[in-house]
């Protein structure tokens, strides 16, 4: 467990910062949005990221991975949060790769992980069915039929759902509609007959979709983990995703915060720099203190994934709740302190504000994680 980055991790962070500043600045996202890019990210950029090993940071060397652990992943995600880089990094290299790694058979790992590592295979987790994160409230069904399952139901807020080649679908094979038991994870090719996918345009100009499954036949060999026991894989996968998105949110928040501090040092009103006003100083200083707390929480959560997975649920909820609050506060203050220009599309700050709101909903909002944390603490 470490709360300080190693030399190696700092180098990776510097490399990521340079690469993203040159190849995926906020302007790149703005361009994807303005040109209504059908894919929502640049495949060339993703290939370059994969060549640098980012698609395989958390994967063992045996599957073509970099084996750099979650702290390594964290610094890359944080830097990609700073430039709002759109890529399959989260959905494929974190969530998808973790599902295969934690739940897949040896055969599945051999077949899929090297392809993920190479940036050739993209994945998406088809989980949510309502407007709030309720990971056990699943009514999409998978019914056994000979050597196959037949899938019926609909999913929403599927990150990268419209662009991923394969979907990891959370379906109910038994149990009541709120039970954590009776869930099964199935790997489904997105162009299988009966899968229909509708891209949704969200405020952050990134990539999500609604997907329906109408009598989709999936071979039983595509089950990830065990039938009815998908929750044992899904819960740790979600926790890894929560910590990872928290790292991205740290980058989003820090960038918005630093841009705002810089603005306070150049904007003049009433003949003075507005940064000299104590009303603004104290608000930024308070955020700095929250940034420091969130930094410690995030580092601990990232190293918990690798070193103490039994404590991950508590740390993942702590990190997600804390970073949700930080990202919300920072982006709101960023807009307010920029004043009129803060609400124009011309300034990038709005992009940070909008990305923060989407990220806050991913895998559980603040209320969800506070409730979970309290429950884990026994009250």
């Amino acid at each position, binding site marked *: 467990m*470490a*709360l*300080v980055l190693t030399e190696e991790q700092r180098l990776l962070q510097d490399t990521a910062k340079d690469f993203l500043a040159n190849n995926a600045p906020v302007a790149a996202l703005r361009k994807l949005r303005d040109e209504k890019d059908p894919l929502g990210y640049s495949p060339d950029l993703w290939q370059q990221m994969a060549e640098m090993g980012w698609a395989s940071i958390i994967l063992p060397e045996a599957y073509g991975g970099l084996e750099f652990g979650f702290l390594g992943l964290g610094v890359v995600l944080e830097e990609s949060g700073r430039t709002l880089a759109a890529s399959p990094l989260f959905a494929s290299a974190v969530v998808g790769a973790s599902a295969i790694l934690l739940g897949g058979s040896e055969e599945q790992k051999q077949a899929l992980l090297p392809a993920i590592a190479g940036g050739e295979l993209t994945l998406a987790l088809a989980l949510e069915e309502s407007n709030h994160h309720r990971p056990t409230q699943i009514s999409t069904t998978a019914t056994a039929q000979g050597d196959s399952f037949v899938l019926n139901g609909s999913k929403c807020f599927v990150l990268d759902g419209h662009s991923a080649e394969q979907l990891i679908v959370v379906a109910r094979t038994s149990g009541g509609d709120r039970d954590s038991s009776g869930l099964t994870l199935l790997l489904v090719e997105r162009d299988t007959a009966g899968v229909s996918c509708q891209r949704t345009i969200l405020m952050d100009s990134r990539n999500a979709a609604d997907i329906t499954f109408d009598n989709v036949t999936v071979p039983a060999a595509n089950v990830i983990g065990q039938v009815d026991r998908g929750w044992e894989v899904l819960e740790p996968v979600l926790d890894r995703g929560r910590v990872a998105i928290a790292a991205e949110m740290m980058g989003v928040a820090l960038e918005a915060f630093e841009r705002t*501090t810089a603005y*306070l*040092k150049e904007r003049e009103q009433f003949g*003075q*720099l507005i*940064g*000299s*006003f*104590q009303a*603004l*100083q*104290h608000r*930024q*200083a*308070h955020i*700095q*203190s929250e940034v*420091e*707390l*969130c*930094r*410690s*929480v995030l*580092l*601990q959560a990232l190293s918990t994934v690798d070193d103490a997975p039994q404590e991950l649920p508590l740390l993942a909820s*702590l990190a997600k*709740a*804390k970073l949700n609050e930080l990202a919300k506060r920072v982006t709101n203050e960023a807009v307010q302190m920029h004043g009129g220009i803060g609400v124009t599309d011309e300034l990038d700050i709005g992009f940070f504000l909008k990305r923060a709101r989407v990220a806050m909903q991913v895998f559980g909002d603040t209320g969800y994680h*506070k*409730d979970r*944390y*309290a*429950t884990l*603490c*026994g*009250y």
Partner: protein
Amino acid sequence: MEDLENFRLEVREWLQANCPESQRQPMKREDQYWGGRRGKFPSEDAKLWFERMRDKGWTTPEWPKQYGGGGLSPQQGRILKEEMQRINARTPVYGIGIWMLGPAVLEYGNEEQKQKHIRAIVNGETRWAQGYSEPGAGSDLASLQCRAEDKGDHFLVNGSKIWTTAADKCDWIFCLVRTDPNAKKQEGISFLLIDMDEPGVSTSPIPLISGESEFCQTFFDNVKVPKENLVGELNKGWSVAKALLVHERKLMAEMGSDSPRKVLVPNAAAREYLEFENGKIADARLRSDLVDYDMQMQAVALTHFRTFEEKAAGVRSAAGMVMKYVGTEAEKTKSELLLAIMGSRGLGWEGDEFTAQEIDTARLWAMSKAMTIAGGSSEIQLNLIAKNVLELPQS
């Protein structure tokens, strides 16, 4: 790493053999030993425990061996602390000398001062008070007025200091005094050590809203102080004070986790004073306040660990700069939360109708209000973060 593990085993064994059973019990305030000429041991075991720890240098584990300290590395110091916590071993001696003056003298004092004062602190022979704030200079420390005139072989000190903790029980006081009245605010200040037995020094306690009066006002009326008691250079006391404030802030941030009294924590209080339904606190608002507090406290504790790891790794960050602010604000939140959880049981002030713990909680609540004022108020902390971390323009 292996050396550290061996060290841990040695420490564990030594503590097991040398820490008397009675010194592993929860401590009440009257069980604390603060040293000094007027210091009394609460028991024979406490004396034995103190002497054993003193002989190892472990009353001040990380101070240099040549002045009687333990000579431990930060990592070893941490291990000792953890092992003591593991068996609930009591802190053998408390004191501002250990927490604040010692580190400052080690950094800024000359050899004679180290020989004289450090050893006396390690041996528990002197109890120190701090003389910074003045009635007219609270948060604005640099505007202090207590003056020391150069009289050739000595300084003549006149003025007063306020919030001098337990000064009526102390032997020595370290003071910031004005030595050059014409210099700009924070120039012209010097750091002086004053023997409280000198003629002209007097103290009077100040009753607080908590019902306690551990703070005093201390008066200096033509007190002669030998020149050798100046720490650091003349008129450069501000840099000594700054170094010391860092220690004070760290200390106040730590107080919650290292409190000498075993006090109620909100999570435990909830089980005792609140209704539960299906395993959850029935009052949704209190449940939500409690989870906010628990998360904040865990974040503060992790940040505390981070500052330690950063120090060991030689990494600089802003984490240390925010600890005083977040630590004391969290303590205040905790006290308010405890009162809310306990309802009318949290209001008892004295008498047998309330448990000692309930009365302690109410009094600590009142005391917690001082924590965000003393040692640089929260507002001052935010000013410092704005200036030193964010480097915002100053008006």
